[in-house]
């Protein structure tokens, strides 16, 4: 899922995503052809596909696809969620994407107390896990205790924030008590790491939870053939789908199959053969051809992240803020979108993509393409014209190497940047480097720059990228700034959304001015669906909403 595109690598994210629960706002009801033409006419946020012709039909199987096996079907043992997880599990809340509000999922209501330190949830009564045991406040307690236990080694543990404990006054009341207020908590509560687990199954299965997973979601586990498919059955007792669905009960289809097909081209062919019902995150080079066939429903949606050029500010050439700013002005983001991303993206004028909670419009320090200003800044910083059109200072040319992942899109963006920077006398080299190596080498600051992408729905993600306490890990630009630290800390504890937005506005301004990152572009997700897949919705983050789906061949 995209939620974990937030890790700097996106190797596993490609084509694997579909993920969180989300609310759909039905924008328009359109047939396959209409959806295809809507594709050309700007962005409709959440997109509705082929609509109901009469009553939904029961039966059939919904076939989805992933690029690789999830590491585990235990949501606390996976660094990223995907289609298989979200079909199996439910969370306490889901998100209303159109309004930044959160909606009930397994919790019916909640109240925030003690200045944000206590959140009391009233749980939906009558919910049963796939193993038949009831979902109660004890399940909330057991799930969260397990998540934060270091022995679990849950990659998602930090997203619960400074939780202290969970109280269970009665079966339908769960009280989350924090050591200090944690404003991003609702963004976290609806991601897969906070999927509710059955306490009985935790006790019985222990570390093997992911091999025979038990959730409270619309499908239950049947079989997993690693490398080939995950087979799920309709959970007949399911009756608590989020309220944005027409169908609040069990899915119309008898089951779901998640195929594992690593090769992009093979995935597209399997879809065109009709072996797959839905093709999420279609590869850019196949998109226009698939649209031209006019056979499929097309969903084009923004995503909650984007590409950026991160500059290691401890390197001598980047220690001068004017050089970093010059790079910001030298880059033409429209060209990045047009040439590197096949127009399947929007330019980013902030470190946050427009769909992320906390993004501010009209930032006064935003960069646009102004090569003259870039040249002036470089001259002010003492860089003079040198050999081969590269500016130099004290006999050293302004040259650097950006590390990126060996992915076609990343490299294409790199080549576009390379060319644009050359116009202002900066030489950028591109080095392709594999995920684990990049993760291992950036903390020690061996790199000049990184060209990668991230994704996360809440502005708090910036804490990981820029807070000085994250220096040895996710702060890969080695940026340290007291004001930025203060704003990041404040954004975490400011519970009032309006005030919190102000904090993040100031933060974005500061980050743009300081320019440790050059934001580039936020890509779209393009999802295709077969014409017989009815009532599928794709929300504004590209996540699939499947509980209304039925198959009509």
């Amino acid at each position, binding site marked *: 899922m995209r939620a974990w595109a937030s890790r700097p690598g996106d190797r596993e994210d490609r084509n694997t995503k579909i993920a969180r629960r989300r609310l759909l706002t039905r924008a328009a009801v359109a047939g396959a052809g209409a959806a295809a033409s809507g594709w050309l006419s700007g962005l409709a946020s959440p997109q509705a596909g082929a609509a109901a012709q009469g009553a939904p039909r029961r039966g059939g199987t919904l076939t989805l696809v992933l690029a690789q096996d999830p590491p585990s079907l235990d949501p606390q043992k996976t660094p990223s969620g995907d289609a298989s997880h979200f079909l199996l599990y439910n969370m306490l809340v889901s998100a209303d994407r159109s309004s930044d509000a959160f909606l009930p999922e397994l919790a019916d209501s909640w109240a925030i107390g003690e200045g944000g330190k206590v959140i009391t949830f009233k749980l939906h009564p009558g919910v049963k896990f796939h193993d038949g045991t009831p979902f109660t406040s004890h399940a909330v307690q057991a799930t969260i205790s397990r998540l934060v236990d270091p022995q679990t*080694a849950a990659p998602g543990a930090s997203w619960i924030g400074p939780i202290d404990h969970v109280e269970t006054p009665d079966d339908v009341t769960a009280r989350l008590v924090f050591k200090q207020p944690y404003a991003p908590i609702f963004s976290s509560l609806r991601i897969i790491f906070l999927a509710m687990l059955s306490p009985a199954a935790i006790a019985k299965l222990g570390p093997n939870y992911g091999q025979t997973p038990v959730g409270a979601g619309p499908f239950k586990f049947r079989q997993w053939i690693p490398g080939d498919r995950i087979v799920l059955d309709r959970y007949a007792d399911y009756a608590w789908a989020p309220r944005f669905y027409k169908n609040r009960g069990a899915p119309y289809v008898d089951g779901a199959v998640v195929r594992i097909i690593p090769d992009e081209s093979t995935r597209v062919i399997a879809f065109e053969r009709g072996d797959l019902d839905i093709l999420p995150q279609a590869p850019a080079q196949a998109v226009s051809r698939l649209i031209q066939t006019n056979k499929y429903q097309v969903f084009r949606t923004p995503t909650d992240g984007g590409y950026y050029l991160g500059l290691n500010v401890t390197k001598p050439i980047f220690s001068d803020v004017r050089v970093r700013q010059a790079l910001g002005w030298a880059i033409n983001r429209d060209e990045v979108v047009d040439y590197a991303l096949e127009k399947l993206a929007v330019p980013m004028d902030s470190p946050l993509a427009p769909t992320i909670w906390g993004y501010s419009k009209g930032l006064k320090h935003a960069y646009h393409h102004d090569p003259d200003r870039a040249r002036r800044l470089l001259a002010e910083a003492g860089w003079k014209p040198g050999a081969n059109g590269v500016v130099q200072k004290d006999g050293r040319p302004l040259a650097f190497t950006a590390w990126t992942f060996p992915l076609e899109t990343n490299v294409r963006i790199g080549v576009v940047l390379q060319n644009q920077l050359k116009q202002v006398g900066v030489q950028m080299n591109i080095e392709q480097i594999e995920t684990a190596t990049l993760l291992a080498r950036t903390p020690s600051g061996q790199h000049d720059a990184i060209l990668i992408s991230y994704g996360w729905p809440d502005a708090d993600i910036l804490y990981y990228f820029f807070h000085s306490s994250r220096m040895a890990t996710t702060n890969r630009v080695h940026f340290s700034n007291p004001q930025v630290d203060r704003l990041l800390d404040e954004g975490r504890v400011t519970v009032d959304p309006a005030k919190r937005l102000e904090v993040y506005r100031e933060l974005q301004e500061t980050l743009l001015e300081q320019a440790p990152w050059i934001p580039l572009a936020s890509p779209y997700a393009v999802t295709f669906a077969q014409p017989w897949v009815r009532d599928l919705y794709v929300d504004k983050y590209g996540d699939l909403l499947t509980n209304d789906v039925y198959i009509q061949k």
Partner: protein
Amino acid sequence: MQRYAAQRLLQLAPVLVSVSVLVFLMVHLVPGDPVQVMLQDYGTPAQAAALRHTLGLDRPLAVQYGVFAWRALHGDFGRSIRSGRPVSGEIALRLPYTLQLTAASMVVAIALGLVLGMIAALQHRRLPDYAAMVAALAGISLPSFWFGLVLILIFSYYLRWLPAAGADTPGSLILPAVTLGTSAASIIARLSRSSLLEVLRQEFIRTARAKGMREWRVLYRHGLRNALIPVLSIIGLQVAGLLGGAVIVETVFGWPGLGRLAIDAIFNRDIPMIQGIVLVAATIFVAVNLAIDLLYALVDPRIRYS
């Protein structure tokens, strides 16, 4: 013969020990930390420490190797860092797929290679010879990821005869096996051609013909059997190539074999998984080559192992 086989099997021990030491050193020398990959840097230091301890990564390298080797001797390769499941279990799930694929592509390679090679040798310097050798050259040169996709396009997309990916029907095996077998077939074709040509020039062939033996009998009893010995040894070596090539072919065809498991393990620095897979692959390779050596004796009675 048994004594020879037993000796060869004994030699397996040092091979496996050196392979395991090499792999162990390699996975620890390449940059990248399994704990970091698993927790993606967003974990807390306490978590990282706990995970490192659970995995035994906080102990000296020599101790880590010792623990690994001792467990491996008992058939226990530990648990995968990524999935948390026992490595032996995961390998047991995936190995049959790779063996199936390797065996099927070996059949394709031998059948296709020998036929092409024989045609070329018997029609030496005539059109079929040139055609066969051009085909063989193409077969070696075609990258399997491309050739595989072309096969998918033709047989799966246009003709719709065979599935594009997966392993759920018997037909699923055909395209991956052909893709994987083609380059091995080309090598076998070239080698069997030159080997057969060489043999057919020998005097005993002339003698056989001179005594009025039927041509197919000359070919089969005297020609082919003698020509096969070098071919057999190359077949043994090709098994290694097939196991390696399976990585790409399994990815293209979504075939759930060991090759893909290996790739994922390497990207995730899943140390126990990498070690387990490499040891299994090395064992297979040694075993296949032993089998080939024993086959020599069957094909050529002059070769005796005593």
